[in-house]
């Protein structure tokens, strides 16, 4: 086994929550508000319910093949189609790492206009590469310290924005019917599809038999952490204005005024992005390195960390020409890509593994006769 470290079920759940929540705040929020407007919260609830398909499939798959990562499962148990699927999964992890790195750069660029994008990319990659090099335990423990701090800060920020909010902006409920809500729900479902990266981490949790409970909690808590941001900007600016914003939560936080001194809470939003994206990038970067090392049957993934760092850095610049292109990617490709990789494929793999097992048992019985 390449990875020697072990993380607790809580650490694994917390990693999933951080990774999902930050993406929710940065991009999924914009997608959901654009599609579903004031009914974004309904889309979030339905989307989470649909997202459970992928979560349950990935967890069951991991429990079915204990101690094996998604890439190992595909390489060892699904013959050549599995190998192709494993390579596609590695590409998917690579694409999502590029997206996260680029989003980090773009988010900072929206505040520090004159600093080159490359500077932000280099900084986040240096930190992530170090975290990935140190291993899963380090990432898990670091996140266990940071996530509660972020949650407390988010609660404080949500409380301080209350005076500027008018929740009647969330009405009418289902004013434009189910179609906009459906489109938003699919974006949320796609977002939950990202949890397939946990297929690279779940084999290293201490109590795999309790994974399902932990992962269902992940879905519930992520939904709770998403409901605030999906309703907040709509309540503050109205659905039409909120849908036009690049980073709605950031705009919301800028309106906080707590007395005469505490009125620049932007730094908290930026801290949230930085820490959240650091963990998200580290998890996907780790999955990419570990998966590649397992596919090539190497003894350790560490020699691949730096080469992949360079590739991710250069690739994130190539990922999109500008933010417009990233947005069209998010609106056109993000949801279908994640639904395919995070829900449809895991379900298919789970069904196939059951079928293969049944056929093998039948063959064994026939041979015994």
């Amino acid at each position, binding site marked *: 086994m390449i990875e020697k470290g072990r993380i607790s079920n809580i650490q694994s759940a917390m990693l999933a929550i951080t990774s999902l929540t930050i993406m929710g705040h940065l991009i999924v929020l914009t997608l959901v508000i654009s599609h579903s407007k004031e009914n974004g919260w309904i889309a979030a609830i339905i989307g989470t319910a649909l997202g459970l398909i992928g979560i349950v499939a990935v967890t069951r798959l991991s429990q079915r093949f204990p101690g094996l990562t998604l890439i190992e499962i595909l390489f060892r148990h699904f013959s050549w189609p599995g190998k192709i699927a494993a390579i596609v999964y590695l590409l998917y992890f690579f694409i999502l790492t*590029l997206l996260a790195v680029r989003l980090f750069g773009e988010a900072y660029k929206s505040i520090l206009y004159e600093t080159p994008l490359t500077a932000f990319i280099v900084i986040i990659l240096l930190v992530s590469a170090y975290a990935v090099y140190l291993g899963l335990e380090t990432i898990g423990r670091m996140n266990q310290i940071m996530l509660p701090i972020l949650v407390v800060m988010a609660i404080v920020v949500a409380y301080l924005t209350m005076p500027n909010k008018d929740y009647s902006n969330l009405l009418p409920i289902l004013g434009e019917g189910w179609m906009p809500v459906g489109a938003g729900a699919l974006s949320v479902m796609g977002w939950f599809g990202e949890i397939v990266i946990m297929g690279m981490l779940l084999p290293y949790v201490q109590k795999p038999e309790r994974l399902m409970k932990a992962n269902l909690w992940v879905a519930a808590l992520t939904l709770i952490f998403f409901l605030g941001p999906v309703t907040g900007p709509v309540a503050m600016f109205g659905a039409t204005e909120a849908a036009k914003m690049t980073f709605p939560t950031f705009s919301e936080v800028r309106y906080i005024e707590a007395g005469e001194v505490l009125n620049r809470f932007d730094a908290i939003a930026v801290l949230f992005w930085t820490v959240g994206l650091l963990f998200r990038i580290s998890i996907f970067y780790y999955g990419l390195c570990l998966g*590649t090392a397992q596919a090539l049957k190497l003894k350790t993934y560490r020699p*691949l960390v730096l*080469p992949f760092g*360079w*590739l991710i850095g*250069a690739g994130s610049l190539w990922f999109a020409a500008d933010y417009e*292109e990233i947005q069209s990617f998010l609106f056109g490709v993000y949801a279908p890509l994640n639904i395919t990789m995070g829900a449809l494929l895991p379900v298919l793999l789970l069904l196939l593994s059951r079928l293969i097992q049944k056929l093998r048992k039948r063959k064994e019985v026939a041979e015994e006769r």
Partner: protein
Amino acid sequence: MNLLYSLAFVALAVASVAFQAADAIRRKQFKVLAAQGAILALAIVLGILAIYNFRIPSMAELLQALVPWQA
């Protein structure tokens, strides 16, 4: 200037991996060396393309072309 940036990029990329590559050679782990070389080569190509600002279809564009319902 672009040439200087490109040379610096290549030098830094190779230097950062040099120790681990040397270790892989010493331990005769040629598969590791090949993987490092391939990944780094791809990174260098992409890096130089980015430095020279060559207009090639970005990954976002390529993926959008793959989605059937996109124009």
